[in-house]
């Protein structure tokens, strides 16, 4: 017998009697009086910087300023019209300074933002960039992860990720260090209905 068959046979023989999945009453889960405020608050405590007031204008200035520095920038704010970076290898992306991209959805309870593969063009980009800038529309902020999974289609692409801050570690004596292996900073622009 193959290992597959051995394992499946042992599991079938040893498993307990069938129990039911729980009925999850999601109306019990938290609703925030101000989802956007909560979302921003969570991102800040995770070490991100955020912009909500006049965010469209500030983002424009941000882009202009960073582009003027002559560093390697990837702007993915206009998918599907942005340039396709899919073929780039890690060695070519290594010098990537800042990446701009859009999140489909944000979660108020934890500041996490869902970015699917089609928003990132190349799976490595949101991780290998030194600085990550994410733009999100405030109407796409939900209360909890339960609501998030009701809204997103996790299997629409080959890969997708929730990002909730800049990379970090506390592995040296529990001292928080921002900038572990992924991006060293995260800036989030929350776009209002009118801004």
């Amino acid at each position: 017998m193959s290992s597959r068959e051995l394992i499946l046979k042992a599991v079938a023989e040893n498993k307990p009697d069938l129990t039911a999945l729980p009925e999850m009453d999601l109306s019990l889960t938290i609703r925030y009086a101000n989802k956007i405020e909560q979302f921003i608050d969570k991102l800040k405590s995770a070490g991100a910087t955020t912009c909500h007031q006049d965010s469209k204008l500030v983002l424009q200035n941000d882009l202009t300023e960073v582009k003027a520095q002559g560093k390697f920038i990837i702007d993915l704010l206009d998918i599907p019209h942005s340039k396709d970076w899919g073929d780039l290898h890690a060695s070519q992306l290594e010098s990537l300074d800042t990446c701009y991209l859009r999140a489909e959805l944000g979660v108020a309870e934890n500041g996490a933002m869902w970015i699917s593969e089609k928003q990132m063009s190349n799976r490595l980009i949101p991780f290998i960039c030194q600085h990550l800038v994410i733009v999100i529309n405030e109407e796409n902020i939900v209360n909890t992860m339960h609501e998030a999974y009701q809204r997103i289609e996790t299997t629409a692409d080959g890969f997708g990720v929730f990002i909730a801050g800049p990379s970090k570690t506390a592995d040296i004596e529990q001292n928080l260090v921002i900038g572990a292996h992924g991006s060293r900073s995260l800036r989030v622009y929350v776009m209002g209905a009118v801004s």
Partner: protein
Amino acid sequence: MIVKQHAEAAQEFIKDEARTDWHDETLWFVRHKRDKAVNTLPEWESLREWASQIKNHTLSNLDHYLKNFEERAISNGIIVHWASDAEEHNRIIHKIIADNKIDKIVKSKSMLTEECHLNDYLKSRGVKILDTDLGEYIVQLREESPSHIVLPAIHLKRQDVSATFHEHLKTEEGNFDPQYLASTARHHLRERFVESELAITGVNFAIAETGSFVVCTNEGNADMGVHAADIHIACMGIEKLIPKTEHLGVFLRLLARSATGQPITTYSSHFNKPRQGQQMHVVIVDNGRSRQLGRPDFRNSLKCIRCAACFNTCPVYRRSGGHSYHSTVAGPIGSILNPNLDMKANSDLPFASTLCGSCTNVCPVKIDIHDQLWKWRQQIVANGYVTSGKKAGMNGMAWVLSNPKLYRLSGTIVRWVMRKFPLVVNNRLNVWYKQREMPAAPEKSFRDWFKENQET
């Protein structure tokens, strides 16, 4: 190699009192952060109950979900392997490495690969793996093993890390700044990520209905490796399955809050298909898990999501350090998982507990950890895996306690001896005297006192 028993190894650990206090307080601080995060959610107890029931259900139908997962994963273009034990797991990975003539390999945190001793297996075949989680990287440079499943280098101080980095990465001698040390490691590891040909990761959750899996990190090291390399191997125990994507909502809410007090890890990566031109492998490992599934008293230990909340709250773990448990998974959960792997070798672990029950109270999937510790003790005694001294002591105790007259007489004698000749108990031969004073013996027993006071 002689492995020290928990009590003996713990004795070594606590010799450095200042460091023991630091270890204790730091982990208690993490436990405190967990409490703060948990208290922001009124539905916390419902989440725990749902998670527990989802895991119970999954275990009760696990063969079906494993087949489901495999079928969907294959149709997503993932290559699925099955390994009955650690040796087979290691052999499968070695074959992928050899077939593709790979020599640049990075690995993110995976307790399963630690459990299987993958690094040693490959090293003895001339293949070197680089651990990229900062804590794991530090312990790998020091040729140690992780002492905690979430905080692998929690047994080390910044001075230790500084000395290790000075030796291996040529950092400034005596520079203890965590920011400086971490950024040096970042710089060094970036080069290794970029040139990596193969990346190994663990799996936090595997979803049966979609054939996808989720990997959670704060550092971003799993993603840096996986998306740079042409081959991704993800290793998972059979118990990592959950039925549906919507269940991730429950588990991702519980995991990081329980582990570190964060509302979620920085990255929660969902892998469905390999990218264009990439090979993606999943290795599904049993290694004793199906046996544990067949033990009614212990099967629900397989619900564990490896958050380590039980480590951080455990008064014994905090004051004895992870290495005292001589196992990949230390702490209370390790003490109920490891006897299944080797009851004799791990017969000391269920005794490394006060049975206070705090582990059970913080467990996000409601594993009855302290009950299982107590049940393992009975199995271990029944199998004859306790020292003859402990066995004789327990038998003597049982004889006295089940004999009221003898019990009263012994009490009288002991109280008299302790008052008149304290040196009989206050000496090095008495293990209860170590690091503590014996209590002052009362004049009379509670029973005598009660009798007198009831009558007057």
